[in-house]
């Protein structure tokens, strides 16, 4: 039972364009969402997060949007750079259950020069 889904296994964009990675969740008790970035042979690294009390959070080139009614969030990267090529994991958690963070299967982003 995958409570967090990333339906696009891969995404390819041109350098300088926008990358949009999508994530859907089913558990309405999730109230905190995170994005992690993973390079080959390394562990995931935290990228950006958003609380359910917000609908947008921005950090430099990275913006996360949350649509609670649709149980959907997205990560926008503008402008995309070749160094952004990695696997991106969406994760969701509920503050009342602090050790049940659920991850999506990941989306492999390739940014072409």
């Amino acid at each position, binding site marked *: 039972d995958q409570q967090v889904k990333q339906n696009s296994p891969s995404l390819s964009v041109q350098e300088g364009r926008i990358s949009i990675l999508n994530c859907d969740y089913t558990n309405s008790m999730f109230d905190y969402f995170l994005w992690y970035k993973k390079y080959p042979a390394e*562990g*995931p690294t*935290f990228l950006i997060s958003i609380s359910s009390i917000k609908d947008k959070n921005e950090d430099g080139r990275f913006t996360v949007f949350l649509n609670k009614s649709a149980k959907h969030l997205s990560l926008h990267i503008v402008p995309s750079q070749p160094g952004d090529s990695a696997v991106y994991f969406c994760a969701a*958690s509920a503050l009342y259950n*602090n*050790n049940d*963070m659920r*991850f999506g299967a990941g989306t492999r982003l390739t940014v072409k020069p």
Partner: protein
Amino acid sequence: TAGITQAPTSQILAAGRSMTLRCTQDMRHNAMYWYRQDLGLGLRLIHYSNTAGTTGKGEVPDGYSVSRANTDDFPLTLASAVPSQTSVYFCASSAEGHGNQPQHFGDGTRLSIL
């Protein structure tokens, strides 16, 4: 700064054998976690520890055990390995065991059970 150190980097193990994956952190984080990553499934939590001396079960705990004798170390043991435990294992930590705290990950242990 080392952060999270996992050992070994990779291992091939015969089914039925036991194995302990090591994890050490130098950030003095209270909470630590073990995940397995499988293709198409993302990361799934095996066990966690909110503080030294306590542990809890995650989403997929069967066949695994952990201990947390001190703040820095959180070893994961497979008592009798089975092929379905072939996976990449990641150890992680966070300052506290709250859902809004980003986790810091090690570089993983690739384990193959034959």
